[in-house]
């Protein structure tokens, strides 16, 4: 199912906002059911680890629910740990909310092409050209930065420092080294772009023409919007 990056961007952002503002557990369940299965299918290339870590994170949310919302009748009593109805309800609401947010994001990641997204941001969504150029530079530099970061961490380990910069001081030291290399590259990318006439380049507006995949997503979004609004009104 081919979809325009504009549709995918709007879809993922809108579902995220709806999930954030919804309080009704039935609405959250509907949003999660509409997004998580499709997102999991489209985002299956992310691998098992991605989903495994998500479920590990949910365990932390369960502990937080027990810490902050443990009220009502006891549901589970295991020695010193008493899980009450309030904690279970809080956990389920947060789980459904996060699942719909993750599902919408996975739909985006599964269908969007980053190069097409950058083009759509500038030509269809009319985001300022310079802003999109910055984003393009940032995304192009990611691979180089990962390599640089790996080398810096290796050097830190060889010099007897902790491999991971876990304190504010070591984070500062790590970032200074990483940034000094990256800024030099950025400077020359900027100079080259200026010489190629970046500031003189005309924007090529591209009209938004939704295809079948876009219509499916927009109908799905309209459905979720209706459910959320109805739950707030009724």
């Amino acid at each position, binding site marked *: 199912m081919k979809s325009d990056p504009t549709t995918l961007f709007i879809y*993922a*952002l809108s*579902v*995220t*906002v709806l999930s*954030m*503002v919804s*309080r009704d557990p039935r609405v959250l369940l509907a949003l999660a059911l509409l997004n998580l299965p499709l997102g999991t299918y489209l*985002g299956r290339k992310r691998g098992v680890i*991605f989903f495994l870590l998500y479920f590990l994170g949910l365990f*932390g*949310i369960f502990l*937080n*629910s027990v810490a*902050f*919302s443990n009220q009502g009748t006891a549901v589970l009593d295991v020695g010193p740990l008493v899980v009450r109805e309030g904690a279970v*309800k*809080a956990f389920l*609401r*947060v789980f459904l909310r*996060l699942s719909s*947010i*993750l599902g*919408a*994001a*996975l739909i*985006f990641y599964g269908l969007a092409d980053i190069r097409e997204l950058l083009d759509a941001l500038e030509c269809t969504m009319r985001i300022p050209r*310079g*802003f999109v*150029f*910055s*984003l*393009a*530079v*940032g*995304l192009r*530099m*990611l691979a180089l*930065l*990962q390599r640089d*970061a790996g080398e810096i961490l290796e050097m830190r380990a060889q010099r007897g420092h902790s491999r991971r910069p876990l304190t*504010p001081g070591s*984070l*500062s030291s790590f*970032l*200074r080294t*990483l*940034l*000094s290399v*990256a*800024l030099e*590259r*950025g*400077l020359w*990318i*900027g*100079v080259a772009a*200026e010489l190629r006439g*970046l*500031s003189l380049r005309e924007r090529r507006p591209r009209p938004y023409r939704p295809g079948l995949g876009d219509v499916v997503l927009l109908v799905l979004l309209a459905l979720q919007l209706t459910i959320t609004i109805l739950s707030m009104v009724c």
Partner: protein
Amino acid sequence: MLVQTVPELRYSAVDYAILGVVAAVMGVVFVVAWDFYYLVKALLGPIGARVFTYGIWFMAAPLAASLVRKPLSAFSGEVLAALVETIIPTYGGYTNLIYGVAQGLASELAYLIFGYRRWGPLQAALSGALAGPVAVTLDQILFPELITAKTFAALVLAATASGALYGLIAYGVSRVRK
């Protein structure tokens, strides 16, 4: 030069490229910070985690502003880094972008109230600190079940202190550009 007489408004391609570099560096740091946040949260709880890690997510704005020193550079730096964090798949998905826009607007205020003439450590610390209450308010919207009225004030204080600390660190890091 920490004080400018007239703020320069026009962005050059080099400024945009530097914003891109900040976005990439901080986008990567933001992604790694999730693991750090969960580790500290497991050891010190939600308030300790916010004191020691939350400010990391507010660093892009003061870093970008200290490097570019033009109006809206703090906002652009934070939003671009959040966009990179959104595009590199993380569990937060598009919440990262929503947080980035809100935090970027709050951080930009620190430079706006000084008329875009001062880009020093005070402004950087203020820029980080102002993002704290905004982030915790968004947390309250996202996790109303997990943040009680009692903890909200403590979390705001923790995030603000963390933002100020990491804002200062961002300013220190920006000094690599002579």
